[in-house]
Every structure is written in structure tokens, then in C-alpha cells.
């Protein structure tokens, strides 16, 4: 009898790229392909031309050669930047998709929280959705009935249990969805970034439940961009980069490695010429970057260090009154601030007309301003009341790690998008308190 819960051997997954933007394959394409296939085979045999059908370039390995083991009862963190293959790994382990090569061995019932509320139907009541969602997650009806009251109590929706969930607030909806998933009681729990949604109170509750699960001796695989959550919940972590497992160590070491080697690098959004509509001319966006205090492009930054944001662009001809700026939003879409490069009156005067050329507009978000979490940067280039040349509402996502931020001695999520260092004074007042009746 082995004490392993999960063992993977050279696990790999290949995807066709451009899948999301590519239009759906149609019968006609397939028929046309089939009809010309013999000809193309013949031609490529003779010409040795690298024809598209033999070209592996339109396929990409989202995960390659990943071998690791997880002991029963171990809580393992998985870190890596966006697109490193974390979600693909979880999808394979939770059987949503098949590996392309290699294999995984799993001992025990797997519960996956790749997303809460899967299969929730807006027209159904909370009660009905609990049963439906429970069944989708693999619970037996008897099991759902046994845990029903507990789920409702955890979600704090007692009085709305017979209301259709479309009338729920987003907070209620999330609480209910998480409550069902949290009561699945699997031997192996696979969790993907559920904490990116919901308010602080909800996140605190999720984290609490997660550490309960971990302490009950169950096996947990935990993916998050929230380094402090990873640090708190897991004892060991693996680092993925470009689909490969590059490092495995006790969590604090793994996080240091991840932050130090610039694996968290991304922090950049570039626009290719095919992504820019003709209407932006003469403005041509090139890139948006965030840099840490060492000047490295990264997608995990520290809230206690200043962050440099730069927008690179070219002007084919001069534009008068141009302002290039950023919006910062939370993942829930709340605006944190808006700022333009000509906000400052001197710059405004100086660039009344911006001549053609290649530019970088750069600004610094001060240290100790933002709270930890994920943020979205949007770009806007416009001339006030004249024309909006370019706008991308979802240009770049980055993560802020709150290590060292004020109040970190308490392991709680702080409300609000900002987390300033304020100067508090605590004075003892030497006057007796008089109570006025």
C-alpha cells in the first residue's frame, strides 16, 4: 500500500493555438480538406515543402514532461505566471481533459474547484441549485440531503433559499456556490484561483475553509496568484514555467525562486499590427509594461515597492491635444484611478501638439498605495472631446503581493483596493472618563 495520492509521469498536453479566435471548423472546410488531401500529400512528398498540414507550428505544448508526486495529506502549491500551464495541469488531474502524452495516477476521490457555481441555473432557486450543483460535482443525493442545512448555514442565505438565484446579489451567489463545493469532502481537492473573486469577507471565509480541509489531512493542490495565500496554506510548492516543472521546494523557497528568477516575468502587453484597427491611425500602440523596482518586467509585483508603468507607442503624424493614459481597475471591474501623461500643466503646455515619432510615456505608482490582489490596466489615447484614438479596457493583468505591507501581522484580507501606510498615533489620555447620564 503506497501513501501517494497523485503521481504523474511525463504528463503533457498539446493544444492547437488560435483556438479561441479561429472560427469554428465547418463541414465545408473539412470536406474541402479531405478532397485535396491526396494532392497535398503527393505534392509535399515531391517538393519537401513544409506544407501547413505537416507543420507543427500551429500547435503548442501547454504542459510538457511534468512528473511529480504528492503524498496523501500533503498540501501542494502550484505557482507560475499566466499561461505557464497551471490550469491545464489541474484540468488534466480533475479529468476535464485528457493528457496528450504521459500519464497520471490518482488514488482517491477528486473534487475540483476550477470554478465555483458550475451548472448553476439562474432560474432555479437556491435549494434547487444546491441539489443540481452537488450532483454535477459528483455528490450522491443522500449526501447532499445530509449536508443541506450545513451548506445553507455556511452560505448564510437561509431566508432566500427558495428564491431564484438570478435575484441573488453577486456575494450571495458566490457564497452559495462555494458552500456547495466546500462540502464535497473529497480525498483530493484541486483548487484554482477561486479567491480572485468575491469580497474580502468571502475570501477570508474561503481561505478558512481551505485551511480546515488541509488540516483534516486531505490532499490539496492549490493554484493562486496570491503568494501570501500560497505561503499560508501550503508547505511545499512547485513552479511551472512555459509548461514545464522547473522547481520544487518548501513554499517560501519556491516563492523566492519564482520572484527572483524573473519567472514571474510577463508584465508586458504588446500589440501586433493585426490587432490594431485602422481607426486608431495616426496613433499606433506598441506595448504596455509594468516594471518592479529593479526595472524588470514582471507580473507579480510587491505592494511595498514602487511600480513603473510605461506605454510605448508611435505617431505616424502629429496629433494636437493628445493624452495617453491608464486606468487601473480591480478584477471586479471597480476603477481605482485614472491618470494621463499630460495631467501636469507643464506637460500639457509642452505637448499641446505632439509631433510624429516614437514615444514612451512612463509613470510611477508609489509604494504602499495599492492593496494586494490582482489588477487590470487599461490604456486610453485620446484628444479630449475630439477623438478617442485607442482604448483597450483589458490590456494587462498583474498581481500585487502584499508581503511586508502594513497590518500583515494579521492573516486577513483587507477591504478596499488601496492599502496606504498611515501615521497612527496612540496617546494615553490621563483624564478620567466621565460618563454622562
Amino acid at each position, binding site marked *: 500500500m503506497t501513501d501517494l495520492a497523485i503521481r504523474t509521469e511525463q504528463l503533457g498536453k498539446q493544444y492547437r493555438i488560435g483556438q479561441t479566435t479561429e472560427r469554428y471548423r465547418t463541414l465545408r472546410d473539412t470536406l474541402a480538406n479531405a478532397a485535396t488531401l491526396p494532392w497535398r500529400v503527393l505534392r509535399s512528398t515531391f517538393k519537401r515543402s513544409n506544407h501547413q498540414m505537416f507543420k507543427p507550428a500551429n500547435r503548442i505544448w501547454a504542459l510538457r514532461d511534468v512528473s511529480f508526486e504528492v503524498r496523501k495529506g500533503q498540501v501542494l502549491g502550484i505557482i507560475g505566471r499566466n499561461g505557464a500551464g497551471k490550469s491545464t495541469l489541474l484540468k488534466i488531474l480533475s479529468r*476535464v481533459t*485528457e*493528457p496528450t502524452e504521459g*500519464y497520471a495516477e490518482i488514488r482517491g476521490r477528486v473534487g475540483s474547484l476550477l470554478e465555483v457555481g*458550475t*451548472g448553476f441555473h439562474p432560474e432555479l432557486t437556491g435549494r434547487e441549485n444546491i441539489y443540481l450543483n452537488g450532483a454535477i460535482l459528483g455528490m450522491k443525493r443522500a449526501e447532499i440531503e445530509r449536508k443541506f442545512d450545513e451548506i445553507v448555514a455556511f452560505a448564510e442565505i437561509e431566508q432566500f433559499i427558495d428564491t431564484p438565484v438570478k435575484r441573488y446579489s453577486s456575494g450571495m451567489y458566490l457564497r452559495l456556490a462555494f458552500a456547495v463545493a466546500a462540502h464535497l469532502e473529497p480525498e483530493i481537492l484541486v483548487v484554482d484561483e477561486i479567491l480572485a473573486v468575491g469580497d474580502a469577507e468571502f475570501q477570508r471565509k474561503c481561505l478558512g475553509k481551505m485551511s480546515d480541509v488541509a488540516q483534516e489531512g486531505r490532499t490539496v493542490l492549490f493554484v493562486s496568484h496570491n503568494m501570501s495565500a500560497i505561503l499560508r496554506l501550503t508547505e511545499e510548492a512547485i513552479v511551472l514555467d512555459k509548461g514545464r516543472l522547473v522547481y520544487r521546494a518548501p513554499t517560501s523557497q519556491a516563492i523566492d525562486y519564482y520572484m527572483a528568477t524573473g519567472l514571474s516575468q510577463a508584465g508586458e502587453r504588446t500589440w501586433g499590427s493585426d490587432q490594431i484597427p485602422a481607426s486608431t491611425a495616426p496613433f499606433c500602440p506598441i506595448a504596455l509594461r509594468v516594471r518592479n523596482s529593479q526595472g524588470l518586467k514582471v507580473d507579480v509585483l510587491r505592494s511595498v515597492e514602487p511600480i513603473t508603468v510605461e506605454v510605448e507607442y508611435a505617431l505616424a503624424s502629429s496629433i494636437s491635444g493628445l493624452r495617453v493614459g491608464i486606468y487601473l481597475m480591480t478584477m471586479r471591474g471597480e476603477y481605482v484611478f485614472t491618470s494621463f501623461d499630460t495631467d501636469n500643466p507643464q506637460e500639457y503646455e509642452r505637448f499641446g501638439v505632439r509631433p510624429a515619432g516614437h514615444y514612451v510615456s512612463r509613470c510611477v505608482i508609489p509604494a504602499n498605495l495599492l492593496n494586494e490582489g490582482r489588477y487590470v490596466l487599461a490604456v486610453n489615447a485620446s484628444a479630449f472631446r475630439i477623438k478617442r484614438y485607442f482604448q483597450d479596457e483589458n490590456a494587462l493583468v498583474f498581481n500585487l503581493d502584499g508581503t511586508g505591507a502594513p497590518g500583515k501581522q494579521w492573516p486577513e484580507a483587507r477591504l478596499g483596493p488601496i492599502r496606504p501606510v498611515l501615521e497612527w498615533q496612540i496617546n494615553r489620555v490621563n483624564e478620567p472618563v466621565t460618563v454622562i447620564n
Partner: protein
Amino acid sequence: MITKKDEVLFLRPTRGLAALNLRDLWVYRELIYFLTWRDILVRYKQTLLGAAWAVLVPVLQMVVFTLLFGEGGKSAPDGIPYPIFSFAGLLPWNLFAKALGDAGRSLVMNRSMITKVYFPRVVIPIASVLGGVLDFAIAFLVLLVMMVYYSINQVGGYRLNLTPAIWTLPLFLLLALVTALGVSLWLSAMYVIYRDVGHILPFLTQLGLFATPIIYASSRVPAKWQIVYALNPMVGVVDGFRWALLGTQNGPGLMLIVSVGVAVVVLITGMFYFRHMERTFADEI
């Protein structure tokens, strides 16, 4: 994902024809129940007439057919008043057509489930097909009421003619479901990759209505074409349904055998095709 304690699960790429994995389907039988229940529950929420639609649609179809083809209700194929004749054909046909429409699109409609959670994907089209049975049952009661009414009032000389064949009625319902599921498995799996299916579906059900003995009796088809005609499994279903319920003459024979054979082949090949395609659903959908 449900697995027994201490059972080892191997995840590896499948090559060639995958086994059907009916055991997994059995483990997830409750999910079929819950999804069917959801489909039924949701169907008539926020509608004005609710479940009355299950009656209204076939009744209106029957009225139209009777006006167009029934010569005002006087014509009586096989001695059955035309409204009863056409309504008895419409019931199993609508069950089939509705199942096809719902199940064919079911995978794409439930994409969020497919990309996030594991379960045997085949439960989705199965639940969609079963979801139509309630509508069928409601319309069936209307047919019974009509038959009793026509018989009591002797409309068109109609007499209730219940034979022991009525006990085979559930078998024909089963054949309709098997046919619907077989075709749905093919179409729903294809729909994931080829959205063309969305355009083909309404055309298919429209065409099928005329290729099935609903507005006319199958005896109108020339004898030499009868076997070819029966390759449409719904021919066997509708004929058998009328035979069992109305006591019409053309009882089960070679045509029914052909229909059953086609239905079973479509179901089995459909299950293998579905299993084959299933492995990439989450990536392609």
C-alpha cells in the same frame, strides 16, 4: 469525480476506439435524473402558459393538418378520424423532434460544465432526450380524452378499439427514445466541432415530418419502397404506436424489424462516435 476509496485511477491518452465505460455512466445515474429534472423545471419557468405549451403545440399542429389534409376531418385513414390519426402520429414524432433539437444543442449549451468538471459527457444528451417524456405524457392524456370523446359521440363512426396490443405501447415509446438518443449522440458530438449542425437540425426535423407517416398512412407508400421507407426508424415507431393504441391493421412486420435494426445500429455507432469525440470536447467546445 466519483471513485471508490483507494481505487487507483489512471489518466492517460486514449488511442483508437475507446471503451464505452458504461460503469461510469451507472455511477453518475443520479446526475441524469437531476439534469432531466432541471431541463423540465426550467423549460416553463417565466412562461405565461407554462406546461400548457406541451398541449397547445401538438393540438395546433393537429388542427392545421386536419384543415389542410383531412378534408375537414371527414377523411379517415384506416377508419380512424383524421384528427386522432394525425395526433397519434404527432406524439411520438414531437418527442423525437424535440429530443433532437434539445439534445443536439445540449453539449454546447452546457459548455461551462464541460470545461470545468468531469462527468461522463453522455449524461447531457441523455437527460435532454428524457426531458421530453413529460411533454409526451401530457399530450398523451389529451389524446386519450379525444379518443374517449370521439368514441362516445361516435364522430365519424369511430369506436374505441383497444386490443391487447396496447401493452406493447411502452416498447414503441422506448424505440422512439432509442432512435432519438442515437441520432442525438451523433449530432451533439458533431455540433461541438461543426456548428453547421445548428443549421441542419431544423431542416432535418422538418424533412423528417414528411418522411414519416404522420399526415398520411404508411400504406400510401408503394409496396416496393416500403422497406427503404422503413430505414427511417420513426416509421416503425409511428406505425407501431398507432397499431398499439388505435388498433390499426398494419401490425409489426418486416418494416418494424428494419426500423428497430436501424435504430439499434445508430445508437451503438452513436455511442462509439460520442466516446471517440468526448476526449476533446473540453478543448474544442
